[in-house]
C-alpha cells in the first residue's frame, strides 16, 4: 500500500486480469437469449447488386432475420458521417458521398457489407449467409491511386469527377516560389507511403441490445471512444437521443486508430436487436477485419526542397495524393490534411512551405487514422527528403539536420503551416540518440559487417508530431465537427478511497495505472485505493476518447483540474475542522495542515467529514466530495526527437536485418517511465513493421492480395533487436502536467530512419531509392538494377 505518483513505475494494475486471461472483451459478453449476426460482404471492388434473394436463407433453421440495404432505407437510418469538413482551394466543400450501413444497389469495395444475417447461433447465421443469393454486375474498379487518377478512370462516385474528394492546400505558394528562385540547390523526391492494415490483436465486435420495456438501447463495442460513437449514433445514424442509448467499450485489445471510427456494424446490431427482439452480437474474424477495418497511410507524393549554398533550408514544396478508400470514414479527411500538411515543417526552421493534397476515392476499404495518422506520412516524406539532400549535397545527414533544426532558444516557434511549437530541444535528443547508439564507433561496426559480407547502414530521422488533440475552437475553425476537450469526474468515497471517471479509453495504454498515479501522488493516498473507470457512457460524464496521444495531455489535464477542485474543497472542510482560516491551510503528502503548525487533518478524515457532516460548515459548503472538470487544451503538444537505426543488408538475398535502434524522444513530463518505455517499444515495432514487413496490397481491380496472417507480415519479436530508448524532457508549457504524449512516437519517427539506413547501406552499390516495405526481393532487385546500370 504505497503512494505512487508522477515519475514512479508501478506495475500496471490492469495486467493482473489480462495476464490471467480474465479480461472482459466485447465478444466475452453473452447476454440472455443472445442472437448472432454475420455480414455478407462484397467479393468485388465495384459492382451493381443485380439480385439479392434471401428467401431461402430466411427459411433456414435458427434464422431470425436477414437485413439488406432496403431495410436500411425503410428504417430511415442515417449514413455514417464524416467528422471533419475539408474545403478545397477554391472554397468548395469536399465531396461527401452517402455511406449507408448496408450497400444500396452498388458495392464499392471488397468487404462492403451487403446483407446481415441474424440467427440463434453463429453457425446458423453462417450457414444461412451461404444461402443468400447475390448476383453482381461487375463494374470497372479503381483499385489504387494510380488507377483512380489515370485519364478517364472508373468513377467510384459519379459526383466526384476524377475521383477527387477535395483539392486542399496549405502554406504560401508565392513564398515557396521565391525560395526556389534563389536556391543554390534543389532536391526532388517522389515517394509512396505504403498502405497498412491495422490488425489490432482483438478484431472488432459489437453486441447490441434493445430493451423494449424501457425503449432503451445498449451497445457493447470495441471502441476507442464510446461517447463519440454514442454521439454519432444519436445525431446521425440511429436517431435515438443519448438518454436512450448506452455505449460500453469494455476491455479492448488494441486499436491503433482503427477503433476510433463509427462503423456500420455498430449501428446494425442495434437495429437488428430491435427487429428480432433479442440481443445481437457480431464478431469479426481476421480475414473480415482485413477488408472492413479502416486501413492506414497510402500516399503518393512529390516533394522538392530548396537549400542555400550552406545547406540551410529555404523552402519546401509538396504534392500529395492521399487514398481515402471508397467511403469517408470518421476522420478520413482530416488525416491527410490537418494532421499531415501542418506537420511538414518537421523539427526544422523552414521559412517557406506550400503543400497541396488531393483526397482520392478508390474502390478499397476506407483509409483513416492509424497510429500517428498523417504525422508519420509527413515525417517519412521530410526525413527521406532531408537524407536525400544530404547525399546529393555531400553533407553528413546528421550535420545537415543540425544546421536546420529549430534552435532550443527559438521556442515558441511559429511554423509556416499553422502550428506554433511551444517547446522542445531537438539538439539534446539528437545528441542523446547518437550517444545511445555509440555513433563514435559506427565506422568500426561497418567494417566488421563488411568482413562478414554484410552491408551496414545507419539511418537517421529527426521528427516532431502534434498531439493532444485538440483546441476545440481551432479544430472547429479548421472543419472539425466535434469538440476535442476531455472530461473527468473524481468521486472521493467516505472512507477516502477514490473512483476517477475519465472520458479517455484505455485499450493497452495503461490508463488504469497512470491516471491512478495522478490521484495517488496528488492526494497522498495509496495507489491501491484508486479505481479508474472508463469506457461506459452511463458512468462517465462525457469524453472524446483516446487517439492522437491525447489521453494524458487532455484527459490527464481534466483529472488535474478536478483534483484542484477536490483539494480546494477539502481545504475549506479542513479549515473548519482545524478552526483555522482557509488561507492558512496547506495540503501536501495527504495532510491538510495549518501552515507552520503541527495541526493536521489527513485527507481521509476530511473525506469522511464531507460524507458524515456532523461537524461541518453546512451553511456555506455542500456536503460530499465529488468534482467534475472539462479541459479544453490551449494548443497541441509537440513530442519529438531522434531515431537512429542500424541495419545489415545481405547483398546476396536482399534481406535487411535491423541490428540496432536508438530512440531519444521528448514526450514531456513522464508519469510512468515503464509505461512510456513500453509505448516507445510498441511504436517502434509498428513503425519497423511498416518499413520492412507490412503492406496491404491491392491490385488495380481492387482485390486485396493479402488478407490473412499467412501472407500479411506482422512484425514479431524475432524481427526486432533490443531497443535502446531514452527520453529528454522539456515540459509542455500549456497543460498542468507538462506532458506531451508518447503513443505514436515510434510509428512516426522510425520508418524513415529504417529506409534511410537501408539506402545508406546500399549507396555504395548505386541504389538511390527503395519503397516501404523494404522486402528482400525489392532490395535484391534494387541491387540488381543498380548493378545493371553500373555495368
Amino acid at each position, binding site marked *: 500500500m504505497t503512494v505512487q505518483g508522477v515519475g514512479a513505475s508501478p506495475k500496471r494494475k490492469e495486467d493482473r486480469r489480462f495476464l490471467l486471461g480474465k479480461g472482459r472483451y466485447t465478444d466475452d459478453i453473452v447476454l440472455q437469449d443472445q442472437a448472432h449476426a454475420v455480414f455478407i460482404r462484397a467479393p468485388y471492388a465495384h459492382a451493381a447488386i443485380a439480385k439479392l434473394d434471401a428467401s431461402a436463407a430466411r427459411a433456414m433453421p435458427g434464422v431470425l432475420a436477414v437485413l439488406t440495404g432496403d431495410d436500411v432505407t425503410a428504417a430511415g437510418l442515417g449514413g455514417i458521417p464524416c467528422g471533419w469538413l475539408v474545403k478545397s482551394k477554391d472554397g468548395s466543400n469536399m465531396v461527401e458521398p452517402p455511406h449507408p450501413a448496408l450497400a444500396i444497389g452498388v458495392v464499392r469495395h471488397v468487404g462492403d457489407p451487403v446483407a446481415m444475417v441474424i440467427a440463434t447461433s453463429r453457425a446458423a447465421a453462417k450457414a444461412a449467409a451461404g444461402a443468400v443469393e447475390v448476383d453482381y454486375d461487375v463494374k470497372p474498379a479503381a483499385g489504387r491511386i494510380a488507377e483512380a487518377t489515370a485519364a478517364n478512370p472508373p468513377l467510384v462516385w459519379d459526383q466526384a469527377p476524377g475521383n477527387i474528394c477535395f483539392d486542399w492546400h496549405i502554406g504560401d505558394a508565392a513564398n515557396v516560389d521565391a525560395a526556389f528562385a534563389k536556391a543554390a540547390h534543389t532536391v526532388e523526391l517522389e515517394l509512396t507511403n505504403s498502405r497498412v492494415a491495422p490488425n489490432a490483436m482483438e478484431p472488432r465486435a459489437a453486441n447490441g441490445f434493445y430493451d423494449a420495456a424501457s425503449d432503451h438501447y445498449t451497445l457493447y463495442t470495441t471502441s476507442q471512444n464510446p461517447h463519440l460513437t454514442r454521439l454519432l449514433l444519436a445525431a446521425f445514424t440511429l436517431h435515438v437521443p443519448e438518454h436512450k442509448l448506452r455505449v460500453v467499450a469494455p476491455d479492448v485489445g488494441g486499436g491503433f486508430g482503427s477503433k476510433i471510427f463509427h462503423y456500420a456494424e455498430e449501428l446494425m446490431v442495434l437495429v437488428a436487436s430491435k427487429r428480432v427482439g433479442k440481443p445481437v452480437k457480431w464478431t469479426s474474424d481476421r480475414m473480415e477485419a482485413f477488408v472492413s477495418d479502416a486501413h492506414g497511410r497510402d500516399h503518393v507524393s512529390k516533394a522538392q526542397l530548396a537549400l542555400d549554398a550552406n545547406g540551410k533550408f529555404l523552402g519546401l514544396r509538396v504534392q500529395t495524393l492521399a487514398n481515402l478508400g471508397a467511403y469517408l470514414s470518421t476522420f478520413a479527411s482530416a488525416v491527410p490534411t490537418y494532421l499531415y500538411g501542418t506537420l511538414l515543417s518537421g523539427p526544422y526552421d523552414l521559412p517557406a512551405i506550400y503543400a497541396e493534397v488531393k483526397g482520392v476515392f478508390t474502390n478499397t476499404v476506407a483509409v483513416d487514422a492509424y497510429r500517428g495518422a498523417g504525422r508519420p506520412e509527413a515525417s517519412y516524406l521530410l526525413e527521406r527528403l532531408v537524407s536525400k539532400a544530404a547525399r546529393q549535397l555531400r553533407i553528413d545527414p546528421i550535420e545537415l539536420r543540425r544546421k536546420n533544426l529549430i534552435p532550443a532558444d527559438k521556442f515558441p516557434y511559429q511554423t509556416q503551416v499553422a502550428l506554433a511549437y511551444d517547446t522542445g530541444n531537438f539538439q539534446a535528443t539528437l545528441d542523446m540518440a547518437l550517444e545511445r547508439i555509440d555513433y563514435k564507433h559506427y565506422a568500426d561496426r561497418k567494417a566488421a559487417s563488411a568482413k562478414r559480407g554484410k552491408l551496414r547502414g545507419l539511418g537517421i530521422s529527426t521528427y516532431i508530431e502534434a498531439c493532444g488533440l485538440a483546441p476545440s475552437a481551432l479544430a472547429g475553425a479548421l472543419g472539425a465537427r466535434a469538440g476535442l476537450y476531455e472530461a473527468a469526474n473524481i468521486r472521493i468515497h467516505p472512507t477516502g478511497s477514490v473512483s476517477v471517471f475519465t472520458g479517455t479509453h484505455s485499450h493497452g495504454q495503461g490508463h488504469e495505472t497512470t491516471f491512478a498515479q495522478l490521484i495517488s501522488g496528488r492526494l497522498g493516498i495509496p495507489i491501491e485505493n484508486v479505481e479508474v473507470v472508463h469506457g461506459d457512457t452511463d458512468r462517465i460524464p462525457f469524453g472524446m476518447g483516446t487517439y492522437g496521444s491525447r489521453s494524458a495531455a487532455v484527459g490527464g489535464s481534466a483529472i488535474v483540474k478536478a483534483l484542484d477542485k477536490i483539494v480546494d474543497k477539502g481545504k475549506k472542510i479542513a479549515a473548519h475542522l482545524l478552526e483555522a482560516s482557509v488561507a492558512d491551510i496547506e495540503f501536501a503528502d495527504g495532510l491538510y495542515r495549518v501552515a507552520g503548525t503541527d495541526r493536521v487533518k489527513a485527507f481521509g478524515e476530511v473525506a469522511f467529514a464531507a460524507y458524515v457532516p456532523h461537524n461541518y460548515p453546512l451553511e456555506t459548503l455542500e456536503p460530499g466530495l465529488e468534482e467534475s472538470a472539462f479541459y479544453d487544451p490551449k494548443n497541441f503538444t509537440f513530442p519529438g526527437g531522434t531515431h537512429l537505426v542500424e541495419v545489415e543488408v545481405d547483398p546476396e538475398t536482399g534481406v535487411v536485418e535491423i541490428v540496432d535502434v536508438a530512440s531519444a524522444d521528448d514526450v514531456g513530463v513522464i508519469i510512468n517511465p515503464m509505461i512510456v518505455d513500453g509505448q516507445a517499444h510498441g511504436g517502434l515495432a509498428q513503425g519497423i513493421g511498416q518499413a520492412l514487413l507490412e503492406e496491404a496490397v491491392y491490385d488495380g481491380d481492387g482485390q486485396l492480395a493479402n488478407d490473412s496472417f499467412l501472407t500479411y507480415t506482422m512484425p514479431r519479436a524475432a524481427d526486432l533487436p533490443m531497443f535502446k530508448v531514452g527520453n529528454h524532457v522539456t515540459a509542455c508549457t500549456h497543460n498542468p502536467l507538462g506532458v506531451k504524449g508518447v503513443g505514436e512516437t515510434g510509428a512516426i519517427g522510425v520508418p524513415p530512419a529504417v529506409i534511410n539506413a537501408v539506402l545508406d547501406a546500399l549507396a555504395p552499390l548505386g541504389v538511390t531509392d527503395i519503397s516501404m516495405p523494404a*522486402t528482400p526481393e525489392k532490395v535484391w532487385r534494387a541491387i540488381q538494377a543498380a548493378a545493371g546500370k553500373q555495368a
Partner: protein
Amino acid sequence: MKDFAFHRPKTLAEAVALLEARGDAKLLAGGQSLLPVLKLELAEPSDLISLADVEELGDIRVDGDRIVIGAGCTHDTVARSVDVQKRLPALASLAEHIGDAQVRNRGTLGGSVAHADPAADYPAALLALGATIATDRRRIAADDFFKAFFETALARDEIVTAVHFPLAKRAAYIKFAHRASKYALVGVFVAETAAGIRVAVTGAAAVAFRVPAMEAALAKQFSPDAIAGIVIPADELNGDAEASAEYRSHLIGVMAKRAIQACA
C-alpha cells in the same frame, strides 16, 4: 466449420478400417494444415480420424545406418530427439525451424509428409537423404512419393507409419522462409549418404525436386564453387506476391551454396 464425426482409433488397423468405411473421411495427424482448411470451409469432410492415440506411430529408433521416425512424432519431438540430434543433426535442425512453436508442438512428420505441401520443409530432407516412407502396407522411396502439387503416391486409404532416414556423412538444410507464414520460399537440403550426394529443393515449385546438375557437380568437387552457374530456370518455378519465380531461382543458388558451406 461444418459438423463432422470424430474418431480416435487405438490401432493402425482400426484407423485403416475407418478410413475404408467412411468415404469422405480425413486423417487428423496434428491438424496444422487441416484445421485452417476446415475453419475456412475449404474442405468439409464427413469424418475426422485422429491418429493421436495410435501407439504404433510414436517412436524414434536407430536401426543400423538408418533412423526410423514414427509418423506420429511431432516436429518438436524430432527436433529434441537426442538420437536425431546426434546422428542426423541437419534433420533435427530442420524440424526445429518448422513454422513456430505451436506448429511444432502439434504438427507431425507423417501429417506433413502425407499432406505434401509444396512449401513444407520435410520433403527436401526426404528427397536429399533418400528416405523411405513406410505405410500400413508397403514401403515407398521418397523419389517415388512426392508426385505433384499436394499429391503423393499414397492410396486414398493408406496411412504413413514411419519414415526411414539413412544417416548422412554430411548434410545441411538452409531455408529462406516466407516472412509471414514461415513456410519455405526456398529450402535446400544437401546430403552425402552412402548412396551418394543429393540436393533437394522445396518451396520453389509445385512439388519438391532434386537438382541432378548440382548433385553431379558436387560429386566431382564438394564445394560451393562447384555449383556456381547452375541455375534452375524461373519458368519452372512458383511466383507469388512474396517472391517472384526469378527471385526464387536466384535464392536456390544462394541457399544451395550456403547449405554446402554448412555441410563442411
